[in-house]
């Protein structure tokens, strides 16, 4: 018997995931959004190298100075360097955004896999998720801050809990369709243990939609963190964050509008970049996700 060679779709064995990623990188939204996000990330990481001074150092003699060689964006009410505070503020925003996205997805995937695959768990788990979803983020944050005290951890917990159910719903919906695939049944029939089936055969299908959802969670967490800080229930005032800066600048808006505009500009740019990246990923990875969310 002669051996058949497979139809060549290329000379090298190519993983379908690799194809998708190379396709995504060519998408204009992904390119623009990705560049903005990369720039902000580099700015946050390299903050000490970018000509900044200590963002929390108070200099009463330098209050509300206009931009100059000494302070590129001027100084605020306490004489702190606004440029340094904006650059370091990126750190707070990104830490909160990324941590919330990663934590929500980690818990969401675990719960979603269980709820989707083990039908007996489904009703209980999903009702608990419905309950979590009903908690308003702001109320939860205010309650947590008044119970403990304002800190990065509190903000992250307050933002993560209401996001988990969204991840669970998405993962569960993917699991419900994939678990009926013949290749999952084939894995059962060759004796693959259930945890391995979940990790090996079902979880990979959730990666593409989760990348998209994760970017949205990250963007919304950054926005909500700024809003919470603005209200005074977010990050403690000593941490330079864009929300805190906008909040403090608000009182001097007519004297020095840049105190509000500059952090707002960076906040808007970051969220725009992340959303563009998410939209582009959604369009290339899976056009159907838009409907599912």
């Amino acid at each position, binding site marked *: *018997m*002669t*051996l*058949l*060679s*497979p*139809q*060549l*779709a*290329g000379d090298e*064995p*190519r*993983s*379908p*995931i690799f194809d998708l990623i190379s396709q995504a990188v060519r998408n204009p939204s992904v390119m623009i959004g990705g560049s903005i996000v990369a720039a902000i990330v580099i700015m946050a990481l390299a903050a000490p190298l970018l000509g900044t001074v200590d963002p929390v150092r108070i200099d009463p003699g330098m209050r509300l100075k206009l931009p100059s060689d000494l302070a590129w964006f001027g100084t605020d009410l306490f004489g702190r360097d606004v440029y340094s505070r904006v650059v370091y503020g990126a750190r707070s925003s990104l830490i909160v955004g990324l941590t919330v996205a990663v934590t929500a997805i980690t818990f969401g995937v675990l719960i979603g896999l269980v709820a989707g695959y083990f039908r007996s768990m489904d009703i209980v788990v999903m009702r608990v998720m419905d309950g979590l979803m009903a908690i308003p983020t702001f109320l939860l944050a205010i309650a947590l801050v008044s119970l403990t005290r304002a800190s990065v951890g509190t903000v992250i917990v307050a933002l993560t809990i209401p996001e988990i159910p969204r991840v669970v719903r998405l993962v569960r919906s993917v699991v419900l369709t994939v678990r009926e*695939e*013949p*290749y999952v*049944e*084939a*894995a*059962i*029939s*060759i*004796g*693959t*243990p259930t945890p*391995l089936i979940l990790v*090996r*055969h079902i979880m*990979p*299908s959730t990666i593409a939609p989760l990348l998209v959802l994760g970017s949205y969670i990250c963007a919304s967490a950054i926005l909500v963190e700024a809003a919470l800080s603005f209200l005074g229930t977010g990050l403690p005032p000593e941490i330079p964050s864009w929300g805190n800066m906008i909040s403090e600048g608000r009182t001097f808006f007519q004297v020095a509008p840049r105190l509000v505009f500059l952090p707002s500009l960076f906040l808007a740019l970051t969220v725009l970049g992340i959303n563009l990246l998410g939209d582009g990923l959604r369009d290339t990875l899976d056009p159907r996700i838009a409907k599912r969310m």
Partner: protein
Amino acid sequence: MYMNALPPVIDIRNLTVPLPLGGDRRNAVEDVSFSASQGEIVCVVGESGSGKSVTAQTIMGLMPKTFARPSGAIMFNGEDLLQASPQRMRALRGAEIGMIFQEPMTALNPVHTIGAQIDEVLRTHLSLSPAERFARVVKAMEEVGLPDPHRLYHTYPHQLSGGQRQRVLIAAALILEPRLLIADEPTTALDVTTQAQILKQIRDLQRSRGMGVLFITHDIGVVAEIADRVIVMKSGKVVESGITSSILTAPEADYTRMLIAAVPTLEAARPPEPALGPLALTVKDIAKTYNVRSGIGGTREVVALKPTSLTLRRGETVGVIGESGSGKSTLARCITRLIEPTAGEAQMPDGSGKPLRRRLQIVFQDPYRSLNPRRTVGQSIIEGPMNFGVSKAAAWEKARELMALVGLDPAALNRYPHQFSGGQRQRISIARALAMEPEILVADEAVSALDVSVQAQVLKLIDDVQKRFNLAILFITHDLRVAAQICDRILVMHRGELVEEGSVRAVFASPSHDYTRRLLDSIPGRQAAATA
């Protein structure tokens, strides 16, 4: 070329449709010319990828937007459809050219009543009063043999059977009495007994109205049943065309000859007295019922499988035959423990002490979905043995042997499923099952999704591995012709019940159950084959 006395309704001249860049060939359809006259059924036959559906879509102006502009001409009634404006095409579709599709479920809108959907054609093309329209819809439904049209007018697609849905589509396609009907695999998704009825319906309507029919199919049996003239297509080109009887009895092109030869005949291929090995499987009164929630709080019991018993010996192939909903797949799933039976059990005689999953393996129907697209075929094949403690190196070595055994290059183990064709993937699925060194192989419609020529090769492979490993095979299929090729014994299932059991010869020669007789009579091309 065969000349018809009547003028052609449709005359396709040198049609070439380029494929988008990156396709497996330059043109989906290349230099295709043929015509169909009034009162004539022309079958376009070919395997997947032959360009037959693209031809039909081009005629209707329903090409995907990724395709470039076709060249050539499609003359319909003196008018070139390739030059027609979208408005003109909209006016022609439905009124002058009717079309029916393969999947009667998805071609109907689930949220409108079927009456309203047939009526839509009238509302779009004519201005009639509601009463006149209702009368015409009811008449059209009567003509296609839908029972009680006044009641069915107000039903929704999901309340009808597959055959009835296809009749609804035919009624909608024919209500304006088009001169040409294009039917793209209209019976492929239907059971064989329903297919026979629909084919007869199309034939009768075509005769009474004298319209031209362009019938696209992959099934030579259907061709024999219905066609006046045949166009054989392969890789976008016409390889042969002519009158049905001469093409079927004296094909000129090698490809046509191969296509006809690959169609399994109903004659039993296996010897009447097979040498049987020891008992491999005893199924005793296995049954499955589902509790379906109906209304508020209440549940209803649906019997998917009535208590069924069977035995299977090493070296023997037992076919389980039935149409959709007959319970044959439920039986396979209960035996393989992919679902838990409600009652009864499947027992294998003790001996090797190996766990069930190693002794009993299954090959699934859909080669495009039974392999995980994100894992290399090597990973898929070694997964099973590694689950039972075989080392990776040993499992990989075994996988290389098995790839060669199923006729594939072992070097391809690092490739992903999308780099293989359907038949090749089915070989990989067989290799994955064999890697477990099973005693029993359950093949659930394992060749149904394949083209006939590929089907014949995979059947031969299954036959080979059975001899080599002395396997007991339970072969689930809806296709009696396939069952005749490979089975020693067959079981016929109908509505969850085993209605007939016996050797292939005995059952085919003298079917005792009424349903078996109907199944046998419905096989397309049977009469034609008998008289030829």
